[in-house]
């Protein structure tokens, strides 16, 4: 939950960066009461988001954390989260790039409709997404039957986890890649074409290298989102168990304290991703 808020903050930042101009006029200048009211209300929301993390960090202790680190099940679940997350983010980024390029370079009828449809996974309950994936890809459904015949059975398998993660995280790689391509001036491509480069060559030598930063950010966002997923994964493929699902399981079986120490480890992974994102942002 906390992580999701952080992701939202990041998206907002990215959009602000694309706005032209700076704030020259500050509405808070010489307006003490106004400033006081607004910063008071702001601190409430900041505290609301931060205090739970502090409680999470203080509930557990070193002993419980080291016990968790030495727990094979816990460690495996975290590595599985990362592995499946990287797979999911990479596959969806690979397929998002051509789609994002089409979106950024054409203006066909119904484009914005398709774009909003593709954002649907961001707003639907994740258990609902899980049910939809299970209905489509279970090994008795046509697509699922085909996939399991070539070795991608989704029930209780890594591929089920990857599919569930992809479904909820793909919108990030699509949106960020699209923004990346939109920021590449068309005249840069025109010159390449006029100098003899075909459309594919132009894409590889000009458009893609110039959009790659945004694409990487999209990949990281997808990864972060994938690792944080619970609902869809629980419905599609509860086992092998990933970190986020194990937190829930420990919470119901082993109690709050151990669940909290596992949470801290997962939180650390999220913070690393966030730190890389910020680094990319800062290097811009």
């Amino acid at each position, binding site marked *: 939950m906390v992580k999701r808020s952080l992701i939202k903050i990041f998206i907002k930042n990215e959009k602000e960066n694309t706005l032209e101009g700076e704030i020259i006029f500050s509405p808070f200048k010489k307006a003490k009461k106004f400033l006081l009211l607004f910063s008071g209300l702001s601190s409430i929301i900041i505290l609301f988001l931060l205090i739970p993390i502090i409680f999470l960090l203080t509930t557990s202790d070193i002993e419980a954390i080291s016990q968790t680190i030495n727990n094979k099940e816990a460690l495996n679940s975290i590595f599985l989260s990362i592995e499946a997350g990287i797979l999911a983010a990479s596959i969806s980024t690979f397929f998002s790039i051509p789609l994002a390029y089409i979106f950024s370079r054409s203006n066909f009828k119904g484009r914005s409709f398709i774009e909003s449809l593709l954002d649907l996974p961001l707003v639907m309950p994740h258990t609902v997404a899980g049910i939809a994936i299970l209905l489509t890809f279970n090994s008795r459904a046509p697509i699922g039957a085909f996939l399991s015949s070539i070795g991608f059975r989704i029930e209780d398998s890594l591929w089920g986890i990857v599919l569930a993660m992809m479904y909820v995280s793909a919108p990030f790689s699509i949106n960020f890649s699209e923004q990346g391509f939109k920021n590449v*001036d068309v*005249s*840069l491509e*025109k*010159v*390449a*074409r*006029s*100098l*003899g*480069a*075909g*459309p594919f*060559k*132009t894409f590889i*030598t*000009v458009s893609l*290298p*110039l959009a790659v930063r945004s694409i990487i950010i999209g990949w990281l966002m997808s990864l972060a989102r994938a690792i944080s997923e619970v609902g869809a994964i629980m419905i599609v493929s509860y086992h092998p168990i990933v970190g986020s699902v194990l937190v829930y399981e420990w919470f119901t079986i082993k109690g709050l304290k151990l669940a909290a120490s596992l949470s801290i480890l997962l939180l650390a992974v999220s913070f690393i991703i966030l730190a890389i994102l910020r680094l990319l942002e800062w290097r811009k």
Partner: protein
Amino acid sequence: MIEIDNLMVKVGDLKIEVDKMIINNGEYAVLMGPSGAGKTIFLETIAGFRTPIKGEIKINGKNVTNLPPDKRNISYVPQDYALWPHMNVYDNIAYGLKLKKIDKEKIHKKVLEIAEIMEIKNLLNRYPITLSGGEKQRVALARALIIDPEAILLDEPLSNLDTKTKNQIKDFIAYLHKKLKFTAIHVTHDPLEAIELGNKIAIMIKGKVLQVGSPIEVFTNPKNLEVAWLHGKPNIIAGEVIEIKEGIAIIKIEDLNLAAIYDKKPILGSKVLAILRPEDIIISEIFLKTSARNIIKCVIKEINEKGGLVSIKLGYNALELEALITRGSYEDLKLLPGKEVYASFKASALKILTMK
């Protein structure tokens, strides 16, 4: 040779129609017109970025109307130069050659060669973001010329530069064209650019090419008012050189002999274009004896107030001149359309333009 036949392109409400235009090999053609005339769209159609509704574009006899831009061998230089920020100057210039699968050594040689001509040899390892406007323009030209294209298309190449750099690059392009004899189509709204660079000028207004000809032809016989409107600022006067003495050329316009200065000595008997800025004309009610060598008795045709200044359109037979005076002197002189006045200007205010 680029031949355009019966071409029609539609973009929104604007329809661009060009019945016939031929640009010969080695010719520097300037497409001139106000903004919104459709010049860039026309250029993009020749480059292959836009598909015409009808008509044909032929390059050296080959119909390229339906070919994609990369199959036309025409280099496009957009207004913002569009240097690739992720490549250094060397890689920017070498790009077109690398596509042609030429061996590395040959590419290296050619890049150095063109960098030498463009005087950008010291910039090869730099990235575009570190370059000045003039340097960027030279790199863009090098990148466009290195592939030895059928033509290069320049979209307002001087518009993003400050006046000093603009004049430098203008002279440089003229020099470059003389040296390399490439075929060019240059889009601009500046008549001076057209006169100083073009072998051929085409005037485009509201999507239509109204007149094509040499600079002298276009500015001597404005075929219609819309073309004449383009002369507005500054005054461009066409005449014949009848005498050159002590650094002053006498040019004959109508039955007037006007004294003018020049940078490059014009040929006696040749037709020339001279520029006269509206603010350099002095208007008086009576004939004044001053140091000004040129005095014309003319009729006021039109008066327009332009902010703090007043624009007076003067006529002498077919010759039209625009003068700019202050509101104060306008009121003092009680000028009215139809009134006869004297327009005086110094020889140094009338300058013969250097053409190819």
